């Protein structure tokens, strides 16, 4: 070998090294977890925040990068950070008691994992009630290639439901008195009004039906009395995103609330939804959308006029709203709409006729779109009706959902969303993956999970068993599991599986959207499928903080898989009792 050729070989080797380094670039990040002051127009309290601020931290990653995140706990109690929606080794998932032991006071824990995806996500504490107390932030991951949409401005719009009470106190109050925070209960005065409007006997019959069940039609939000914030700012502080007329503005909506669903609209602008839960969807233009707790939606708006627009997010129970502004110049404001009338649950939301639906096949070849578990469109219970006629899966692609209906709500549900101006309201049925992540195949097995609870005791559970009494759900690496959620409660549950994607069955086959949270409305059955491709132990729970912490939670154990991947899976403990 000559000197020149040796030098050339060295140069080549060096070039290889360099290119492999750039291919997997590394990023170092650090986060401190601190006690911070939170002030809203309604209350001031000591909360928890990241990097010393009640304004949520935004982490910006790049797809393909290997991130190292040093998290320093400045609290007097343990903490943790869960990277919500990120696909990563389970030891990095940040759930105390499942992925790791948590981060002790004064300790710095270093997370390290590759970024294998792009889009909008978020992070939050998975310890105690730190997330409702303010421990949340946003994650924005830039893709390696170009996005399948265009935008000139890019804003994170992170919503939360800040509450004057600490999470620990809220949980305790709910346990002592489940309607502690419900200030929208039906009163004697409402009864008088209803008697006048519907007649005394109808009003009495209605009160009697609810009283018999000991449930409340106003029980839409377990937790009221919160102040909705956008990026840490209350409606008066008015978070503002600037634009030049004609520009496309990307809004990354993240719902980091403990308990609150929001209906979001921007009067005067249509929103084109381009991403749901971090994954691109085929663009769909809507006037309004509902964001479940822990979901994200990215939308493109294109304001052409030289004026301000209000970003208006009403809570689903209509007890409060978040408000921000898009404006050509800061300080501008647009009209802020009034809250609409609060919804009332109907008997359709009550889960009266759950169970099997005649001869319908619920196997993996069965109906693909959700079916209502029962229907009471007129508010009365219907016994023995033919559920086959309600098979929305059979409607297929040609179906034209009528205005005011949404196959993901029970027919006659009081929660079915309606756009404020009569326009288009986003439905799960509108979501189609832009580019399927997985090859479409039939599920290898179905697991039924009944979402159950006892509102009066404020106990939430799955299959009537709460987490502390439950066996883990065991999955085998390589399976494609079809989860059947049967919501037997009157609440809406945003179900979140860690570590693996939730392919929401909207009846679109390979185009079914890929999510990390699927919201199951009262009185409905919903299916999602999961390609079991991540060995380890994962959390699987309702993302409503006080449902999760009162038992609507499971540990999922993925067994098997490539040796390297599952190497750090701990030994399976001996099971002594059945759950």
């Amino acid at each position, binding site marked *: 070998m000559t000197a020149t050729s040796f030098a050339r070989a060295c140069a080549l080797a060096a070039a290889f090294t360099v290119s492999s380094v750039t291919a997997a670039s590394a990023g170092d990040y650090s986060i401190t977890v601190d006690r911070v002051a939170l002030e809203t127009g309604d209350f001031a309290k000591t909360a928890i925040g990241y990097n010393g601020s009640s304004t949520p931290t935004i982490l910006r990653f790049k797809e393909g990068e290997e991130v190292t995140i040093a998290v320093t706990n400045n609290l007097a109690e343990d903490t943790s950070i869960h990277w919500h929606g990120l696909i990563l080794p389970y030891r990095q998932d940040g*759930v*105390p*008691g*499942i992925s790791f032991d948590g981060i002790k006071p004064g300790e710095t824990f270093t997370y390290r994992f590759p970024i294998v995806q792009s889009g909008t996500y978020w992070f939050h504490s*998975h310890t*105690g009630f730190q997330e409702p107390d303010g421990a949340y932030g946003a994650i924005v991951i830039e893709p390696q290639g170009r996005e399948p949409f265009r935008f000139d401005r890019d804003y994170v719009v992170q919503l939360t439901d800040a509450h004057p009470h600490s999470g*620990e106190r809220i*949980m*305790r*109050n709910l*346990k*002592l*008195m489940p309607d*502690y925070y419900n*200030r*929208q*209960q*039906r*009163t*004697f*005065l409402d009864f008088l009004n209803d008697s006048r409007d519907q007649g005394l006997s109808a009003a009495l019959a209605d009160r*009697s039906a609810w*009283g*018999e069940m*000991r449930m409340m039609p106003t029980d839409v939000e377990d937790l009221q009395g919160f102040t909705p914030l956008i990026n840490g700012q209350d409606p008066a502080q008015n978070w503002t995103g600037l634009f030049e007329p004609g520009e496309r503005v990307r809004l990354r909506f993240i719902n980091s609330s403990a308990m609150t669903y929001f209906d979001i609209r921007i009067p005067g602008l249509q929103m084109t939804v381009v991403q749901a839960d971090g994954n691109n969807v085929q663009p769909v233009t809507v006037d309004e959308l509902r964001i479940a707790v822990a979901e994200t939606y990215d939308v493109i708006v294109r304001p052409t006029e030289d004026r301000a627009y209000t970003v208006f997010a009403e809570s689903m129970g209509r007890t409060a709203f978040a408000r921000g502004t898009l404006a050509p110049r800061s300080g501008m404001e647009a009209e802020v709409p009034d809250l609409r009338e609060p919804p009332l649950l109907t008997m359709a939301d009550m889960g009266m006729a759950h169970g099997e639906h005649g001869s319908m096949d619920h196997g993996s070849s069965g109906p693909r779109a959700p079916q209502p578990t029962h229907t009471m469109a007129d508010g009365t219970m219907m016994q023995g009706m033919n559920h086959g006629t309600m098979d929305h899966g059979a409607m297929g692609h040609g179906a034209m959902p009528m205005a005011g209906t949404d196959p993901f709500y029970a027919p006659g549900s009081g929660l079915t969303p309606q756009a404020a101006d009569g326009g288009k309201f986003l439905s799960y049925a509108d979501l189609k993956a832009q580019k399927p992540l997985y090859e479409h195949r039939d599920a290898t097995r179905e697991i039924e999970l009944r979402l159950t609870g*006892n509102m*009066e*005791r404020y*106990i939430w559970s799955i299959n009537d068993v*709460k*987490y*502390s009494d439950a066996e883990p759900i065991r999955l085998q690496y390589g399976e494609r599991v079809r989860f059947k959620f049967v919501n037997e409660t009157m609440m809406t549950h945003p179900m979140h599986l860690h570590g693996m994607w939730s392919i929401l069955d909207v009846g679109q086959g390979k185009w079914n959207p890929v999510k990390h949270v699927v919201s199951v409305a009262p009185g409905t059955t919903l299916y999602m499928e999961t390609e079991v491709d991540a060995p380890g132990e994962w*959390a699987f*729970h309702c993302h409503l903080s006080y449902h*999760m*912490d*009162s*038992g609507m*939670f499971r540990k999922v154990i993925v067994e098997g898989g490539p040796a390297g991947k599952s190497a750090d899976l701990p030994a399976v403990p001996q099971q002594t009792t059945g759950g």
Partner: protein
Amino acid sequence: MRRHVLATAALIPTLFWTAPAPAEPLIYGLQVEQAERRFDDGSDLYAWDFDALVGTDELKLIWRSEAEYLTEGSRFEKLENQLRLQTPISTFFDAVVGVRLDTPRGEDRAYGVIGVKGLAPQWFELDADLYVGETSFVRIEAEYEGLITNRITLTPSLELDTPLGDDADLGVGAFAPILEVGARLSYDLLDRAVAPYIGVHYERRFGETADLTRAEGEQRDNLFFVVGTKMLF
């Protein structure tokens, strides 16, 4: 009696057991149903009725205290303290076992208690207890929270305490009950933590119990105007 106490002590550690990730927090609180002054002609009295509780979904330990303190003569007409263990037996009802110690002016008494507590259809809160002692009693309590508005509540209540035997010391006759009915109009002043109220409270003794009361020179029924506050912490 001693055996009861030991059984209670043995159960206490399980109350403090919590599950890992997510941790189900300990449930504890103080629910004051009545803390009031009762005005009558001349003989005013103070009364309270509260539950202090600690536990889990599965098992709660409750300290229940009910008292009537007469200003005239500075004496407790009634002073009951109970330690109750409560566990769910159905969707809306709990079973209760416990002990009760009465230490008013006069005769002290101890009872064992077994009962049910829960929410009946149409939102009636029910307590039904059998107190087993020297003389045993059956006590049934019912309460309804009627919302006039979302902050103003009218709470009618009823308590029927029926002795199962004659007891001259307590001034009761077998199956001759003591009835208490009330109606309290409260306003949620501070969240649900403090809700002051005004109302009426009516007590009446029946049968032999009424006769024994009259023999003591007291009326068989009393009507009070009450002022007080509910509390929840």
